[in-house]
Every structure is written in structure tokens, then in C-alpha cells.
């Protein structure tokens, strides 16, 4: 009996699936017929010339049809969401592995320059990843811990960079003095910008921070006398090894340590500087999480009204998160300025803010290891797909959408309590809230 029933059931499923797929293909056709089916290019007279790309259109519509068919069929078989398909034992094993993974990650990061000493390209990539990881750690304090969506984080990055450049060039102070100053100025900016706006609701706050980010960038772009406008500032002093310049001179780093001169020395030095800065950011974040301010940030993220009812000055709490996050962004910016030797407003667009936000979201808001892994994956991925530059951003945007739908807690989906009365426990992601949205996710 059952066996006879089965083939019939599957046939009906196939028709329903085909209908779904056909509908999807139809929608795809409507979406892509003009924008992909045709292409506009400047012709010989400058006016636009139309050309067709029906092959590509057909291919894409067919692909959508097949994917939709596949999805419909899979959905019919598996009613459970993807999360539950991962067995609990695996999840438990993964969370127990987390501390070892962290140690391995840090250990690997420490020896990267030794392994890849001859590969300048990879060393540079390492510096870029560490820089973005630090930006991610900084933004994590604001977005991940305190739950304040900041879409203009690049502004603090920019202020750190430009402050460093201007102070170093004008006053000739050393790297070790200018770096903290960059951070302090960024923090001050964070306080000034944050003070009037932090009482706004989440999405409004997000848009306002976007506005700030753009205003800062536009000012940097247009205030030519101060910032050099679109040409930026060049000739920023490069770092020295505590006074010893990285050149081939007799008082240089190489000569002092009896090594043959190599430009790689400076790169390795820069790598360890940014690694140290990133690790300091992580250490500070972990310490703060265990202090009242860190708990207040997380409580703020969970339920702001309850915080106020407990006597917490939520405006000050938010401001602190904002300022400290800004400060680390500023440090990263200062480092960026000295590493490149040249900065321009192009490096501080909304795209940068969105990238750092994506790293924090992907990494799991609040998780340090997640942010580091996300930075490595995203920037490594970017480099890997360098030839497909145009498609990178497309995939990146799609990834953001996919992550927030399917794995809103990011790659690392658990929260570790900051203090324990007894045993170690892990909080499943489903219970952690990001401000009242009704029922837990």
C-alpha cells in the first residue's frame, strides 16, 4: 500500500515544485530582461548604443529556474530549518573547541611573518586583515555589545588617520605620541557627535550616524587647505623602530642589529604593531565586559527601559560605548596613515563603514573570535577574488543579506556569560535579544 502511494505523492510534489520554479523564472525574466538582456555603452558619437545579451539572460533565467526547482524539492523533504539539521552534539563540540581555536588563531597570527617572510604580498594582506579586524573589534563594542547601530564608523577611522597625518607633519612628533592622539581625537569626535543623537531609536540612530560619516567625508574632501581635498595628504612619516629608522643608513634598524638591509623589516614591524593594537583592543573589550560598564552595555542591548528603571544613566552608557569604539577606530586610522604614507577621502567612504559592519554582523555581534575570523574570511576572500572585482561587492552584499536571514547571530552563535556563580554554561543564540522585538528570536 505505502509503496503504491509513494510514487503518486512524489509526482504531485514535482508539479508543485515546477510551478514554483516557473514562477521564479518568470520573475527573474522580468527583473533581468532589460538590465541584463540589453547593455548600454557609449557609441562613437558619445550617445548610447544598445547591444543585446540574450545569451546571458537565458542562462540566468535558466539558472534561477533550476535553483528554485531544487529549493522547492529540498523544502518538501526537509521541513526543519537548517539550524536544527546540525546535531546538538556537534554544536556542543564546537563550543568546547572555541578556546583552543582562539589560541591556535592567535598563535598562527604571531608567527605569520616568520612563515611568510619572503612573501611581501601575504604580509601586506596580513596587515590589512589585522587592521580590519581591529576596526571590527572597535565597532563590536558599539554594535555588538551595546546594540547601537553605527553606519558611519569610517568617520572615526578617518579622523584618526587625518589627525595622525596632520600632527605628525606639523609638529614632527613620533609615532608613539601621534597614535594615541589620533585615538583621543576620534573619541572626542565620538562624544561630540554622540551626545545629541544617542537618545534616538535604533534605526534613526543608524541613519544619523550614516549622515555623520558622509558629512565628515565631504568636509575632508572639500576643505582643501586643511586636508588637501581629493588629493589627500602624502608624505606622512613612516614609523621607526623606537627611534631607529628603517633604512639602509648606518644608524638604521638593519645596521644596528647587524642584518642586511631589507624593506621587509618595516613591513614585519608594522605587522606586529597592528597585531598588538588588535590584541590590546580585544583584551580591553574582554576586561570591560566583566566590569559594570560592559554589563550595562549588554543590558542596554537587551532592554533599555529595564536599564533605566534600575537607575542606569543610559545616555552616559551609550556615550561611553560610542566614544571607546570611536577611540579604537581612531587608533586603527592612525596606524593606517603611517603604514600607507598617504591618505585621501576615498579610503573612508560609506562602503568602508558597511564593510566593517558586515564583519561584525558576520562574526557574530559580541564575539571576538567571530570578528577576527570574519575579517580574515572577508578580506582574504576579497583578495582571492581580485580578478572578479566587480562581482566581489555583489557577493558581499548578498552574503550580508543571507547571514542576517539564516544566521543572524553570525558565525559564532553563542554568548558566554561574563561571570559565573558555579559551572560553565553557554547561552544558546535563540534566547539572546537585541532589544525588544516581541518574542525572542
Amino acid at each position, binding site marked *: 500500500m505505502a509503496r503504491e502511494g509513494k510514487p503518486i505523492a512524489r509526482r504531485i510534489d514535482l508539479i508543485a515544485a515546477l510551478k514554483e520554479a516557473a514562477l521564479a523564472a518568470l*520573475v527573474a525574466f*522580468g*527583473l533581468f*530582461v*532589460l*538590465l*541584463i538582456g*540589453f*547593455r*548600454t*555603452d*557609449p557609441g562613437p558619437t*558619445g*550617445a*548610447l548604443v*544598445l547591444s543585446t545579451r540574450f545569451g546571458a539572460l537565458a542562462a540566468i533565467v535558466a539558472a534561477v529556474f533550476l535553483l528554485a526547482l531544487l529549493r522547492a524539492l529540498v523544502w518538501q523533504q526537509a521541513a526543519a530549518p537548517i539550524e536544527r539539521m546540525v546535531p546538538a552534539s556537534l554544536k556542543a563540540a564546537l563550543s568546547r573547541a572555541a578556546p583552543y581555536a582562539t589560541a591556535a588563531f592567535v598563535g598562527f597570527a604571531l608567527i605569520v611573518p616568520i612563515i611568510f617572510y619572503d612573501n611581501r604580498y601575504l604580509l601586506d594582506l596580513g596587515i590589512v586583515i589585522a587592521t580590519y579586524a581591529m576596526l571590527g573589534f572597535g565597532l563590536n563594542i558599539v554594535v555588538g555589545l551595546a546594540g547601537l*547601530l553605527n*553606519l558611519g564608523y569610517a568617520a572615526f577611522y578617518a579622523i584618526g588617520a587625518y589627525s595622525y597625518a596632520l600632527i605628525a607633519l606639523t609638529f614632527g612628533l613620533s609615532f608613539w605620541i601621534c597614535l594615541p592622539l589620533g585615538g583621543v581625537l576620534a573619541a572626542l569626535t565620538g562624544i561630540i557627535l554622540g551626545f*545629541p*543623537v544617542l537618545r*534616538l531609536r*535604533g*534605526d*534613526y540612530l*543608524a*541613519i*544619523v550616524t*550614516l*549622515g*555623520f560619516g*558622509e*558629512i565628515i567625508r*565631504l*568636509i575632508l574632501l*572639500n576643505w582643501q587647505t586643511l586636508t588637501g581635498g581629493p588629493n589627500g595628504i602624502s608624505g606622512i612619516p613612516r614609523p621607526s623602530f623606537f627611534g631607529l629608522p628603517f633604512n639602509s643608513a648606518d644608524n638604521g634598524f638593519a645596521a644596528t642589529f647587524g642584518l642586511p638591509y631589507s624593506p621587509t623589516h618595516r613591513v614585519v614591524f608594522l605587522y606586529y604593531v597592528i597585531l598588538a593594537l588588535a590584541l590590546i583592543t580585544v583584551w580591553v573589550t574582554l576586561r570591560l565586559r566583566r566590569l559594570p560598564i560592559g554589563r550595562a552595555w549588554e543590558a542596554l542591548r537587551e532592554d533599555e*527601559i529595564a536599564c533605566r528603571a534600575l537607575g542606569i544613566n543610559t545616555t552616559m552608557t551609550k556615550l561611553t560605548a560610542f566614544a571607546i569604539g570611536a577611540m579604537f577606530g581612531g587608533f586603527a586610522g592612525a596606524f593606517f596613515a603611517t603604514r600607507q604614507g598617504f591618505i585621501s577621502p576615498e579610503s573612508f567612504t560609506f562602503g568602508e563603514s*558597511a564593510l566593517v*559592519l558586515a564583519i561584525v*554582523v558576520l562574526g557574530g555581534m559580541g564575539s571576538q573570535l567571530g570578528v577576527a575570523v570574519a575579517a580574515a574570511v572577508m578580506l582574504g576572500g576579497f583578495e582571492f577574488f581580485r580578478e572578479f572585482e*566587480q*562581482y566581489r*561587492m*555583489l557577493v*558581499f*552584499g*548578498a*552574503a*550580508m*543579506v543571507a547571514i*542576517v*536571514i539564516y544566521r*543572524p547571530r553570525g558565525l559564532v552563535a553563542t554568548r558566554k556569560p561574563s561571570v559565573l556563580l558555579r559551572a560553565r554554561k553557554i547561552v544558546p543564540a535563540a534566547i539572546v*535579544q*537585541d*532589544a*525588544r*522585538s*516581541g*518574542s525572542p*528570536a
Partner: protein
Amino acid sequence: MEYFVQQLINGITLGSIYGLIAIGYTMVYGIIGMINFAHGDIFMVGAFTALIAFLILVAVGVTAVPLALFLVLLIAMALTALYGWTVERIAYRPLRHSFRLAPLISAIGMSIVLQNYVQVAQGARVKPLPPLVQGGYTLLEGHDFAVRLSNIQIIVVVTTLILMLGFSFMVARTRLGRNMRACEQDLKMAALVGVDVDRTISTTFVLGAALAAVAGLMFLLYYGVIDFFIGFLAGVKAFTAAVLGGIGSLPGAMIGGILIGLIETLWSAYFSIEYKDVAAFSILIIALIFLPTGIFGRPEVEKV
């Protein structure tokens, strides 16, 4: 004086375009409380769709401008509405019960997708179009400046007015409009009394996208050049307009649009054109801080 009047005309025209986009923001925010960050890029897609549709019509021999424009309007509205529907279905609907910032993050991702999709599909360079609607009227003759009201400006403002009136009628008198208003008030309750909430929300997105398409066509005709990045700036300014006019209010969106258009035009004319976007962003921030409910908005009391 004549210069000022010209700026007024220009500002109102620009403001009408912003107003059409702002309606999309305000309707979506009113009904599900989210800022559709990708809406500006829907406007951009509308402009591109209109451009390509027009080029196709010309290629197949439809040369009568009014007929071509009418067909382009229909095609652009239909296809862009499809984009609006698709974006809602795949990027926002799954997140309706997720944490509060989830739809915003998804919208940012969607905005990036749309911008880069158009960039990849059509190239990063600007797309010019020769002026289709020419001519106009000279209103005032001053000593060294003549105030001109061009035909395209008339078309923009009149189209906007007609659509506004049509829309207001729809919201106030039709069943769809009633459903939208019910969902705006209380989503759960509307569902309980039998309103198809999913359909109503989808329709809101679709209508907003259609209006954005009209704005895109108007933009294309008025400025004669588009690129994949126009959505970002226009989007932020239109959102500012929606906030200024009172988020959730239709006349507010229009009035806000006109205001922003006027401010931007007058600022560029009398102060500094480089900083005109700074002015727009600053107004946004000031409006959100000091006037969060806008001109026509209803003050929200937070339920504790």
C-alpha cells in the same frame, strides 16, 4: 529677484522628484516600521529601466516622444515594481520577527547588491540621454536674467501632483488603502480581523517602487544623465524629506520633498555647491534630533 524665482522653480521641480521617492520610504516605515535602505537604489533601477526601455523603443521605431514616454512610464513602473516586490520577499519578509536591526542590515546588503548589480550589468560609466522634452516658457525678463519654466519642469510637477492626488485617494477611499491604514495602526489586529497582511505589505512595497520608477524617469528626463550611484544620495535626501514631513504621512512626504528640493537648490545657488550634500545630511540630523515626528507626524508615546 529673477534669479531667486528661477531657483524656486528649480527647487520645486527637484523637490517633486524627491517627494515621489519619499512616499515609498514613508509608506513602508508607516506599515512595518522599517527604513527601506534599498529604496533609493530602487529609484536608480527605475531610472535605468526607463533608459533602456526608451532606447529599445527608439530602436524599434517608436519615435513619437509622447507615445514613447508613456510606454516607458508603464514599462518602468511595472518592472521596477517587480524589483520592489522581489526585494521585500527575499530580504525583508523572512526577518519580520527577527531582532529590530535585522531588516536594516538586510536592507543595507540589498542596497549594495542593487548598486553593484547595475554596475556590473551596465558598466560604471555615466549614461547620458539627449534631452527629449525641449522648450519652455520665459516667465519674467529681468535686467540680465530671464526666468524660464521648461516643459520638462511642468511635466515633472504635474505628474507628481496627479500621482499624489491619486495616491491620497487610494489610501483614503479604497479597500487597499484601508487595509494599509489598518496595518499601520496595529499589524496583529489587522491580521486578526482578516486583512491579508502579507499581501498588503507587498503591495505597499510595490506601489512605493512604482512611484520611485516615475521619479527615476523624471530624473532621467530632467538631468539627462544617470549612473549606478544616484540612488544613494537621492535616497538619503528623500528619506530626510520623509522625516521632515512626518514619517508615515503622505502629504508630509511631498511637502518634505519640496522643502528639501528648495533648500538644496537655494543653498547651491547662494552659498556653496560643493557642500550642498553636507547641507542635506545636516538637515537630516537636525530633523531627527529636534523634530523627529516631522511636520505632519503623529507623536509616538512609548508604551512601557
